[in-house]
Every structure is written in C-alpha cells, then in structure tokens.
C-alpha cells in the first residue's frame, strides 16, 4: 500500500515504524529536515521536507497515487486542510487526521464529506487518557482493552504468588469459577510467549492475558493475584494535554491532584478544572511530594512530556510510599528497563495510540487493533463476511480454521451475545471475532484469512 504520513513527531514516527515493517511504501512529510533525517536513517522510507498542507509539497510526496493519507502534524488545522486538499485535488481514497480540539467534533458537518472530508479522526491524547482511566478503574491490571463497544475486555495481569490459580494448570480455572466464561489467550514468561493449553501451569511473575466479558474482569483477576483496595486518591504529574484530560475524566469519582511546573499552565488548569487541586511545582521535588502526602496516594501517574522526568518522579513517588505508579515513557529501551521493577506500569504512548490507525490500514474488515507488549503482539477484532465459499473463516468450526502458530481466536461477539471460543464453536457471517496474535510476523496471514477472496465476488 502507498501511504503518505504528514508530520514526523512522536505519533508520525511510530506510525511510520509500525507500517514500514508491514511492507508498505511510505513517504513522510515534515517541516523539520533533522527529524526526517533520523527517520530515514532508521527505516526504509522516503521523506519530503515542506509544509504539509501545501499542494506542491503533497504532490512532491507522491500523493497522486497514494492509497492512504495519515495527517498527524502538531496542528489540527494543517491536518484538516491537508485532508481536504488530498480529497479534492488528488483523489486520495482514504484520509486519516489527528484532531485534538473537541470543538471540531461537535458537528459532523465539519469533518464530513461536505466539510474537511476526514474518514477517520484520531486523538492520541484522548486514547491515552482512556487507557489510563481504565488502569485507575482496574488498578491491578497492566492493560485493559475493550472490544466490540466494550462488551468484551482483554486484561493483562501479572500473576502473583498467592493468587488461587498461580501454580496450577489453566484447566483448573473452570473449577474455580464455574459460572464465568473466560479464556486465557496468552502467557508471557520472561518476555517470551507461551502458547497456553489446558495443562500450562501459571507461574508467579507471568504476564497473563485473559478475555472475559466486561463485567467479569474483576472476578477473573482475583484468580491471579490478591486484589488491592479500590483507588481513591490520584496524583498526576504533568498538566499538559494528557494531564488535563485525565484529571477532567477522574475529577468526579476520585480525589485528584495535578502538579505542573509552569505557573501559567497551572493557572489555566485551575480555571478550567472543577474539583481538582492544582499545584505549582516540580514533580521531582521531594519536598513538594512530601507536602502533598504522596505516601497516601493510591496511584501516581507521571504524564509530563519528558521521559526522564516521568521515570524519576515515578521512582521517587514509589520510594516515598505511593501504592502504585504509572509512567508515560516514549523510548522503548526505557520501558524495558523500568517496567515491572519499581514502576508498575509503563505506558508507551505510540503503541497505545496506534491501534485505531492500524485498524484502518489493515486488509479485511478489521474494527479494532490493539498493540500489546510494546507492539510485539497484537489483538484484533475482525468482522467476518462472505460465506463458506468466499472466506476461509465463515461457516467453519474453530478447529477447522488454519490459524498460524501463536494466533488464537479468543472470543466471538454475535449481536449482543459474547461467546468464549471453544474448538467446536462455529463462526457465522457478521460475527465479530477477537483474535490474539502472539507473533507480529504472522499478522498478514491472519489478515488474509478474514479477507473475502476477490475471485469469489
């Protein structure tokens, strides 16, 4: 596929990175040649320097025969204009734009066909906020992902000594919680995937991925670790875009404190946020944390735009007694360095946000894609179309489907009903199927499975 990406910032770069590895022709446009150079050094792609919304620059980037435009520059307006130009002047069939301001979303006409002609709108800050809010709701989880409009959830939990199931084979799960239908789709042990079957024994320290309908998550987690008290007090370091959205989302149900070092930013936050304590100071300042009783915090979330600051303030908060610390970390090497040691959850913004975008790029009718384990694994929700003749999934029982190794079908959503996959479950057309792919290299095979073959159409 030929893809043009506008903007080589954090989002642009990580989008480029994940798409390049899937054999696409990628051109990245940015005003800053230095950024482009580093991208070009690392990946096999083309770069064009220039203003992303100018038709001449877009033409130079080869937008004429592009299949997809991904506009993810810093500025909403540039992204919107680029989409409009791509649609009108160059007939680009699909256009994705990053839009931060919620004002644009209030009326469909703004982004619709008579407006800026944006097919898909993404807002990384909002995705990250939702991600963290989930972690506040389920403080024991490493990650909580929703499928089929929230009907099914995938949770990643670290198994701890003392969980009833830990040290036992998976098959005993049925006896522990007979009324609840759940499925363990993957286990990562010391960073390698273990394909689970009934006899696999869960060990302490394993990262366990289970699928369950949304209301049963808590019950399933209890099997793997002892539960903590629910979160009440949250401290957020960094009052930027994410910090602001996060405190807004949490203000109603939790006691929230936000720390930011910029006084003007603090004033703005205090003026717009209701029911949040806004504190002016440095999140790595021990005295401030002491003053604000970090030891009593159930959750400490570091979301400044600086990796080192996030890590340092999280470590400090943890040492001073915060129950659980979550840190936003962009650099992949840092994530591997700190997650699981002192920092409970390290969130990679790029991986968290890229899912929706990937769903749009994939072949087949893929509704949702979630990156897991820093992009090494993926969970996707695909809609099954066609019939037994035209598609290799439709009308077959699960045991009949030739899934590549490491991939497994976890659950099926049929209308409002959630079915956990068993070997004899039959898949019908229009089912939403949730597939777990442990090895990313096998992704194209999985995608092809769900594609309705052209020769049958």
């Amino acid at each position, binding site marked *: 596929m030929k893809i043009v990406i506008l903007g080589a910032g954090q989002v642009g770069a990580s989008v480029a990175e994940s798409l390049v590895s899937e054999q696409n022709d990628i051109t990245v446009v940015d005003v800053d040649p230095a950024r482009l150079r580093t991208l070009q050094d690392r990946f096999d792609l083309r770069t064009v320097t220039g203003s992303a919304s100018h038709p001449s620059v877009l033409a130079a980037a080869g937008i004429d025969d592009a299949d997809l435009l991904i506009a993810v520059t810093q500025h909403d307006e540039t992204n919107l204009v680029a989409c409009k130009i791509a649609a009108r002047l160059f007939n680009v069939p699909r256009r994705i734009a990053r839009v931060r301001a919620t004002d644009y979303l209030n009326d469909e006409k703004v982004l619709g066909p008579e407006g800026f002609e944006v097919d898909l709108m993404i807002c990384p800050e909002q995705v990250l906020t939702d991600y963290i809010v989930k972690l506040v709701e389920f403080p024991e989880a490493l990650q909580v992902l929703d499928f089929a409009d929230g009907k099914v959830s995938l949770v990643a939990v670290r198994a701890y000594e003392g969980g009833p199931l830990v040290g036992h084979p998976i098959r005993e799960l049925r006896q522990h919680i007979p009324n609840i239908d759940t499925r363990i789709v993957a286990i990562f042990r010391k960073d390698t995937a273990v394909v689970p079957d009934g006899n696999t024994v869960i060990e302490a320290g394993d990262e366990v991925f289970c699928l369950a309908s949304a209301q049963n998550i808590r019950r399933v987690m209890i099997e793997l670790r002892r539960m903590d008290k629910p979160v009440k007090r949250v401290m957020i370091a960094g009052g930027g875009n994410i910090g602001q959205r996060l405190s807004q989302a949490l203000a109603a149900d939790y006691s929230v404190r936000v720390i930011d070092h910029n*006084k003007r930013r*603090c*004033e703005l*936050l*205090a*003026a717009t946020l*209701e029911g949040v*304590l*806004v*504190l*002016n*100071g440095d999140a790595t300042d021990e005295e*401030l944390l002491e*003053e*604000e009783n970090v030891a009593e915090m159930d959750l400490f979330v570091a979301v400044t735009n600086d990796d080192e600051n996030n890590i340092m303030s999280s470590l400090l908060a943890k040492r001073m007694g915060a129950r659980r610390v979550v840190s936003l970390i962009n650099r992949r090497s840092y994530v591997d360095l700190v997650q699981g040691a002192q920092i409970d959850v390290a969130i990679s913004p790029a991986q968290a946000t890229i899912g929706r975008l990937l769903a749009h790029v994939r072949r087949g009718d893929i509704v949702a894609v979630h990156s897991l384990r820093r992009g090494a694994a993926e969970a996707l929700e695909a809609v099954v179309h066609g019939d037994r003749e035209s598609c290799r999934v439709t009308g077959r029982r699960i045991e009949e489907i030739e899934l590549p190794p490491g991939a497994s079908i976890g659950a099926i959503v049929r209308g409002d009903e959630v079915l956990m996959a068993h070997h004899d479950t039959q898949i019908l057309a229009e089912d939403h199927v949730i597939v777990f792919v442990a090895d990313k290299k096998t992704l194209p095979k999985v995608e092809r499975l769900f594609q309705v073959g052209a020769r049958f159409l």
Partner: protein
Amino acid sequence: MRPLAVLRILGLVVMLFAGCMLVPFAFSLLLGDAVLFAYYISVAITLVAGAALWFATRRATGELQIRDGFLLVALVWTTLPAFATLPLLFYIPGLTFTNAYFEAVSGLTASGGTVLSGLDQLPPSINLWRGFMIWLGGMGVIVLTVAILPLLGVGGSQIFKAETPGPMKDTKLTPRIAETAKGLWLVYFALTGLCLLAYRWAGMTWVDALMHAFTTMGLGGFSTHDASFAHWNSPKVELVAIVFMMIAAINFATHFLAWRRLSLGPYRRDPEAAAYVCVLVGSVCGIALYLYLVGVYPDPWVALRFAAFNVVSVATTTGYSNTDYNAWPIFAPLWMLFLCSFACCSGSTGSGMKMIRAQILFKQIFRELLRIIHPRLQRPVKLSGLAIENRIVLAVLAYLFVYVSCIILATLLLTATGLDVLTGFSAAVASINNTGPGLGQVGPLSTYAVLSDFQIWVCSFLMLLGRLELMTLLVVMTPAFWRK
C-alpha cells in the same frame, strides 16, 4: 480631562431634570392641589440654571474619557438633589435646606430615609415627587451599575458586565450605553406598570399605587403614610410589595435577557440570583422562627407575615415597614441590618456591597484556608465556573476595607456629636446601604429629623457614597485625579 465638556453635559442633564419636574407639575394640575406655584418656580429655576450652564460651555464638544465619567457621575448625583429640593423648599414652610437636601438625596439615591413627618397631610403631588425621585434614582442607578461602573472598573465591578447585552470593550463612553440603557429601562418601565396594577388590585388608591410602584421598583422606602405599610394592614398589599421588591433587587440585565429570550435560563446562569434568593428565604424563615420562639408573636403565621415583609424590605434596602421592628429583640433587626449590606444583586436598584462581592470574598477566604493546607496550590476564585482575575479579588478586598472604614468613621462622627451607639451605628449602616430607616431614634416609625444639621450632612454624604459604590466618589476627591 475635559471639565468643560463634563459641565456641558451636566447642563443638559439639569435641563432634562427640569423636564422630569413636569411630572408632579402635571399631577398638581390634574389633582388641583395647592402646590402649583412651587412647581412653576422650581421648573423655571432648574431650566434656566441648566440652560445657562450649557450655554456657557456649549463649545466644549469633546468625547468623554474615563476620568470625565467619574466626574460626571459624581456631579450629577450631587447637583440634582439640590434642584430637587426646590418644590419641597417652596411648599413646606420652615424646611431647612439641609433637611430638604437630605430628603432629595434620600430620594435620588433610592434610600428612603425621611426627615418629613405628617406625610398623610402632604399634598399628593409632593408625595408623588418624592416617589418619582426614587424612581428616577433607580433608573439612574441601573444604568450606572450595569453600564457605566463596569466600564470604569469600580471596586471589581468589571465582572458585572459579564452578561450585559452587547460588547462594551471600548474605553470611551460610547452610544452603546444608550442602547443598553434603553433595554434596561424598558424592563424597568414594564415592571413598574405591573407593580402599579398589582397594588391597585390589592386595594390601594391609584395615587398611592403609583407612588408605591415608584418607590418599590426603585427600592427606596418613601411612603405616603407615616405608618408606612401598617396603614393598610393588608397581607395582600404586603405580598405584592414583597414580590416586587424581590424582583427589583435582581440584576436588571438578567431580567432583560430573560425577557428577550423568553426563558428562565438567564436567572439560572446568574451567579448571584440563587445565592440571593437562598439568603433571603433563609433569613425570613430564621427570623420568623426566632420571633415565634421568643414569643413576640404567639401565632407562627403572623410571625412569618411580619418577618417576611420587614426582612425583605430591609434586606433589599427598601425600608418599608408594617410594624415597629425596632421593638423586636435586638437580634432580629441587627440581622436585617446586616443583610442589607450584601443581599442585593449587582445591577439592581438595591444598594450595599452587593451579593457578587460577598460571594467573591467568601470564596477568597476559602481559598486562603486551602492555601494553608496546600502551600503550592493554584486556585482561582470562580463564579459560575469562570475564573476571576486576582486583580478583581484585590479590588473587592479594598472595597470591603473602604466600606467598613466608612461605617466605622461615620459611626464615630455620629456618636461623637451626641447620638447613642445603636442610633449612630444603624444610621451609618442604613445610610451607606441606602436602606432608609435604621434603629433606635431613627427607627421605622420615627424620622431623621431628630438629627442635628451636621449629622444630617454626614448621612447625606454616606448615602451618596454608598449609591456611587464608594470609589466613584472617593476617586474624584484624590489629588491625583485632578493632576494633568
């Protein structure tokens, strides 16, 4: 600064005021009372004085700047009462200029404290003139507080303009104010008309109804009877008065918006209205309960009736009474006096510190307390979810300080010259809040005539000071104001 241009406009205002005198003049003609001659002379003098002033300064046609605005406001409110005394001086023999000026100031600042007794014997047109002064004062005050003071930024009043119709960002006193004023006056007219009909329906004569419609909407407590509302002794009349006093003490800009949009939404968004209603209803219930419990009124409904009327009347700075609340145990009247210093909404015809300033002060106190617990806290004072600049909070704090200082100073002056503490203090509070009657010797059933000339002047000055939101008058008295 352009003092000449200010004087030219003052001349025009004085001529206009002569036109206003034609109203009681016409009534005098209509009713055939014996005051006609006084109006001839008064109108003539006022007209000639205004015309002379205008003629002398007619070439000074410059646009007014902010400073001129202060001067004009201060001059208008000190000059007009002088002319307004004329009909009273000519008709009532033995009335000194001091007392007449007090009466006129009390009228034009919509206060309602009086030095006259034997009101029932006064000719209707004189009483009508007193009521009409209050009504005119109310008109002036609405425009002053909604359109002019926010422009001048007096005592944090910048925030008042939040929802007034039309943008008024210009620093000049533009024709925009005329547009705003027209809308507000329309509401004022309409409400006065309704009030007149309601009073008539409740059983007043047409003349009484008109006079009381004027003084109710202006929130000044002049009455045509020495006994005030006790004259009718009718719960129906009192209920009408309560309703319209409550309406008149809400921001007229809010009334205007509600009327233009035909919805109650503006009242809900008005940061003051809810607090104002809560404070008033709470106080009425509290005082009624208190009067019942201490046994002033054995019947709880009677207690509620008297508490409701007198509390609303004093809290909205009107100053009617239907009983001698001076005789109640001191807690109740003191509480009422305390209410009148902050209960009214900004942009209404009521006076005092205004509810909005009280709210800001309250939130500021809460903020300071939180800051002790969280030293690095950033927290703006917010009204209706909007942050208020710290500069405004400081202006309100300064306003409070000046306000309290004025009361203390005036109380000292009044007691030093021979008044007892209760009379002196209550006269000071009632005057600066434009309430009218105080307690003790200046209670609801007595008049200010017992005060000496000096004390009368102190009270007149306080009324002007309170009406012009303190700073407007004080700034004109600073040397820096006059420096080029």
